[in-house]
């Protein structure tokens, strides 16, 4: 974990309100793993006050680069979307615990919902690099919100939209439910809570392992403030930033 001043290399619109930011990530900063995140200070001092967390969407050690996929939501992400290449970035990372590689003999199924796409793309690339085949399912409300240029190439890539404007009509969770019940699936996911909850029900019913990247409001991002509490079914909380963001999805209380 380091705090570095680095620079934006390029910015590209990848879907409606979605941007891919490519930034310098020096090797001295440590190699991020899929599921890990960084925090970023949108402006020095004043509003927005707190650093904002974003998941790594890729890392290229040879080029000293990393990417983020961000969605414009509020003040910080709007400010990010207006940055031009060369802009200075105040980053802190890599933070948190990423995805663990699937057990041998399991069939990894990667599920991304909406802006949860970044860490899932990164996981897909890491599995590809390790020669592990995986299935990739992306769910979005509508075609305009699908970052098509970022979708992995190769077999086993499926898109679902709520309105059927791209791919099959339906949700990512529907696609997972349609998988053979007796398959030895290992689920990996990041997305909105209803999707994460639906995957939890499927995982519980079929006994599938389920690694879930969670999202929660953060202040410190390093495990110090207890602000990012994620409720657990058995009572108590995990810290999204330090115990997660990748947690055992079957232990999380999703609703």
């Amino acid at each position, binding site marked *: 974990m380091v705090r570095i001043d680095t620079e934006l290399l390029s910015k590209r619109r990848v879907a409606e309100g979605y941007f891919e930011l490519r930034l310098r990530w020096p090797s001295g900063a440590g190699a991020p793993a899929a599921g890990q995140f960084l925090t970023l200070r949108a402006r020095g001092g*004043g509003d*927005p006050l707190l650093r904002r967390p974003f998941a790594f969407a890729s890392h290229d050690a040879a080029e000293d680069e990393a990417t983020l996929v961000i969605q414009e939501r509020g003040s910080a992400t709007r400010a990010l979307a207006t940055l031009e290449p060369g802009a200075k970035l105040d980053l802190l990372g890599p933070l948190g615990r990423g995805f663990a590689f699937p057990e041998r003999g399991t069939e990894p199924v990667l599920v991304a919902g909406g802006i949860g796409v970044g860490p899932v793309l990164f996981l897909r690339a890491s599995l590809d690099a390790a020669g592990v085949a995986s299935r990739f399912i992306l769910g979005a409300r509508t075609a305009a919100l699908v970052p098509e240029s970022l979708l992995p190439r190769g077999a086993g890539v499926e898109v679902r939209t709520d309105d059927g404007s791209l791919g099959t009509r339906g949700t990512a969770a529907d696609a997972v439910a349609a998988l053979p019940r007796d398959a030895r699936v290992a689920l990996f996911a990041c997305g909105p809570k209803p999707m994460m909850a639906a995957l939890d029900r499927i995982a519980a019913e079929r006994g599938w392992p389920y690694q879930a990247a969670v999202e929660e409001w953060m202040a410190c991002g390093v495990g110090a*403030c207890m602000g990012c509490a994620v409720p657990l079914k058995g009572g108590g909380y995990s810290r999204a930033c330090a115990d997660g963001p990748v947690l055992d999805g079957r232990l999380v209380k999703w609703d």
Partner: protein
Amino acid sequence: MGLNDATRAPVGAAPEPFAPDLSVRIGPLTLANPVGVASGTFGYGEEYAALLDLDALGAVYTKAVTVEPRAGNPAPRLAETPCGMLNSIGLANPGLVAFIRDKLPALRARRFRTVVNVAGAALDDYVRVVEEIEAAGGVDAYELNVSCPNVKSGGMAFGTDPALVALVTEAVRRATKRALVVKLSPNVTDIRETARAAEASGADAVSAINTLVGMAVDVKTRRPRLAMKTGGLSGPALRPVGVAAVYRISRAVKIPVIGLGGIATADDALEYLLAGADAVQVGTATFADPGAALRVLEGIEAWMRQNRVARVADIKGLLIE
């Protein structure tokens, strides 16, 4: 040294470098410098070890320690507000036994001064936390959190009633000879009353301020943004409230005042020191800039050099009223 020593300074020579004394005394304790990191914003120190030189800090005020482990309040616990934030953490901490077992050894191995923030639901809880930490070898100082707005019983219930502040302070005073700081709540009509109660009951210092009660509503969903509905406001938005509190307290008591609330830069800290503080704490600013406290310290030192102020305690005399 040597500033007024005309006999030793050769005529025409460059002035000797001026080295201000940054140390601060809080009762029996000497802090190497006036800048600490505030309770609840810095964990138990080690969380930030990779990001700054912890031992350069004057003090680390730990997250509150309670007798029993506390899971904390429902989520969401955080919301950002204009130039500030609300939190409703709810004193989440591993409890006294785990603190002594898992956190204390690392804290004691450090050079910075450790001030354990103590909280409880009842008077006996405060005493027990301090007694057991003392029995385990102790720490440099204790800060009584009688002012947390996030717990239903205790916390602010103690902190808003001068008679109860006096009771807690007296009881803990009997349990330790170490420096005892009472952290005051701004959620009162006149903060000088609780400050005087702490002083009269044996506190070595007061720290001010804890967070102000606040609330934010998400207009789109029509729900309060915190699960607990209300929380504590911290950050720059709080600073003028804190400066005024320190100004008034410092004119009402003789014990040192540790100022906090919205400090992010050396100028912010100097506001507090000029207004009457003897030391400061940096809280929320660390979230935005993990090195904020050390930059505050550097800036205070630079200001003291520039203005040829010899001791931190001299700064409060420089306010022009």
